[in-house]
């Protein structure tokens, strides 16, 4: 029988919150894994309290920040600080193939829900713990967000115009968008290892250690030669010109084009498109252009300043030169290429109504994943999970709610 989704039949019990954990487990949920998020009003996922919100109004169920990372998932609520909640977790545990969590290391130990305790109940469990700096070491309890991690793991330092100026960091919690791809690989490979061997295992992911893979060449270089990579603006040793150049404003908004020229042939093609016949010898070869970079940047900047960024990018691409407008967050929502890939989705969220979700940046042709449902409201699936899956009767569920165990 052919399956509809890649991960049909995989069950995930997900205690993770904020960015890395939920983005990781979203890969599983969007591909058919049945995923139950364990949340609590006692310690709500801080993304539920973060903008943007529906109509710019804060609410526990109206954050698109939270919604984007939690499609295709179910939500139950349990105040894990209470012993009766722990019992319910242990009753759910046999159902789960994978447990994921992203607290600072001591939280689950305190509740006796860490790997050592859980595997006593389920020996072949696969469990992912992801936190800032890993479960061990002197800084294991380091609290923080991906914004700080991006500074700690070197990304702020290589972002900027020049080494004598302050850094210009990437937007937001940059490493939160590196670690999940490694963590998802870890879980999927561990699932396969268990299929082959029957053995589960524990995965301790330091977001710091995962993120450093995106800086690997600079680290290898430092250890080998002592050279410290720094901010270099848009300067490249591979392409010239290479950068972002301002084009004509549109509706009083700045427009820029990003372009990169990889060869002398591409350079001549660019001059053709820009109708510049000057053939300045200082720019004739790649070596010369790299040598005269500052001059080259001014030359290109002047040539494109009055051009329309969209039309120019299309013309350069038609001539075989890599170029694209520098897009803002309005532009990406009306981008023809993202549209053709089927990237954007409007899903009808229980509390938010139709809302804009990022789709998948991959497509499995035979078993495509999809946003199977919008993000859950907090505790939206309490009755179906505690009633259906665990078989508690309505009166008991009501009592657990009253005692703020289901909370």
């Amino acid at each position: 029988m052919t399956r509809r989704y890649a991960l049909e039949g995989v069950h995930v019990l997900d205690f993770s919150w904020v960015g890395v954990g939920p983005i990781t487990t979203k890969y599983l949920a969007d591909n058919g894994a049945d995923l139950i998020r364990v949340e609590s009003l006692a310690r709500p996922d801080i993304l539920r309290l973060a903008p943007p919100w529906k109509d710019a109004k804060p609410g526990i169920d109206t954050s698109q920040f939270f919604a984007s990372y939690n499609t295709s998932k179910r939500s139950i609520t349990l105040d894990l600080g209470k012993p009766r909640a722990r019992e319910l977790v242990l009753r759910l545990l046999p159902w789960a193939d994978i447990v994921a969590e992203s607290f600072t290391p001591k939280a689950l130990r305190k509740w006796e829900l860490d790997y050592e305790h859980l595997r006593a109940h389920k020996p072949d469990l696969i469990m992912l713990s992801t936190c800032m700096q890993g479960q061990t070491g002197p800084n294991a309890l380091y609290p923080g967000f991906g914004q700080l991690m991006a500074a700690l793991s070197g990304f702020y330092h290589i972002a900027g115009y020049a080494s004598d100026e302050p850094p210009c960091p990437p937007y937001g919690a940059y490493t939160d968008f590196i670690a999940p791809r490694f963590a998802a690989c870890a879980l999927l490979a561990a699932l396969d290892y268990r299929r082959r061997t029957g053995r589960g295992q524990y995965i301790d992911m330091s977001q710091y250690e995962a993120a450093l893979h995106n800086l690997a060449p600079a680290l290898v270089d430092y250890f080998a030669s002592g050279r410290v990579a720094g901010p270099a603006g848009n300067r490249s040793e591979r392409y010239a010109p290479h950068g972002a150049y301002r084009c004509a404003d549109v509706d009083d908004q700045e427009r820029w084009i990003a372009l990169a020229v990889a060869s002398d042939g591409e350079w001549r093609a660019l001059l053709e498109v820009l109708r510049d016949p000057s053939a300045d010898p200082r720019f004739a070869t790649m070596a010369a252009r790299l040598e005269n970079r500052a001059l080259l940047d001014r030359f290109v900047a002047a040539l494109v300043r009055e051009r329309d960024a969209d039309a120019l990018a299309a013309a350069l691409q038609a001539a075989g030169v890599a170029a694209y407008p520098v897009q803002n967050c309005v532009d990406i929502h009306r981008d023809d290429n993202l549209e053709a890939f089927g990237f954007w989705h409007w899903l009808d969220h229980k509390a938010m109504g139709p809302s804009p979700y990022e789709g998948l940046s991959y497509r499995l042709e035979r078993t495509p994943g999809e946003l199977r449902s919008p993000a859950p409201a907090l505790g939206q699936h309490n009755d179906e999970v505690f009633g259906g899956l665990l078989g508690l009767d309505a009166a008991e569920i009501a009592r657990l709610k009253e005692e703020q165990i289901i909370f």
Partner: protein
Amino acid sequence: MASQLLSGFRMLDLADDKGALCGKIFADMGADVIKVEPRDGCPTRRIPPFLDDRPDSDRSLYAIAYHAGKRSVTLDLALADGRALLEDLVRKSDFLVESFPVGYLDAAGLGYARLAALNPRIVHTSITPFGDQGPGRNYKAADIVTWAAGGAMFLMGDEGRPPLEMSLPQAGLHAGAEAAVASLLAHYPREIEGVGQHVVIDMQACIVWTLMNEQAMPILHGDYIRRTGVHYTATGTRRKLVYSCKDGYISTVLAGGSGVGATSMKGLVEWMAAKGFAAQWMVEKDWRTWVPGILMLATERDNEEIADLEERVQRFFDTMTKREIYAEAIARRILLAPVATAADIADDEQLKARNYFVRVDHDTLGRTLTLPGAFAKFSATPVGPARRAPRLGEHNEEVYGELLGIDGARLARLRAIGAI
């Protein structure tokens, strides 16, 4: 020793800098990853900078870092014999990842349909800059161009100055890691049903996935965010994220709120007060409810407090080094990190305590190099680079001879006609 996590599986890696990390992740997890390169080498071998600044196909730091643990063979896809070799390799493999222009493999008679006919189990992953459907499906890519197209570039840099790329290009790394995830998503049903599939990665969309909460801002809050240097502006207020100190910069988030935020602010203010840098209002403040411009809109009063706070914090940090500030911040549970350089990272106590970096013998270069180690610690199947990056075509005999069973005479003939 190679990891057992994916041992027994083989990936053919035909990706350039749009996907080198895919095969690297697989190799770290113990798969047999064979880089299939043109006779003049994968373009990644020519990416600067080079070890000791000596340009050479074995000395690109990019290739050293991202081809560690892989094997290398050469073949020429322009020749029928070269294409036949790839077909033979596909019969013996589980995964193929490539980043050719859309349609290139189809035109060469090696598209997914052909690969699946040779080996129905194959998972064929294609990394594309702008997808395989839209008007830009044949567009050329450079890392900076997809970074711009995906919206990340517009948000980096100072107002009025050019938007920025990271000085170590990132777009291809995101696409490569995404390709690894998607390949493994296809692996799971393949091992149950025995049938692989074609997988397509959209690199531009991978960059959109780095924009955090920004994508929906224009739709839900009515406006988009502009780049503002060292500031964070998601809720209409400028919050400074980077402060100078004696020997560089540190980053901190000056916001309270329940839990770690309030602990952090209280710890910082107590520390500043002890050194005579805190204002009275800061000492008296209840930080548990103070999160303006981070989680909520700021009032005029908030903005005055923010300005005073940021100025005092800046004066305070200017009296110390990164290392001094970070050590005390950890002790006081302040949300703070140094703006670390490669030197700081190499010397970091936490990474040392976890034995993060690994030394890899590069006998071909006559030295040992240090690489990032396990991307995660697995209790049953430790991962990480098991050996150095290969020289160009280093494993031709091994792979063509032992794996494909090609005899010496035919190998010599293939060499002579330039197929290898």
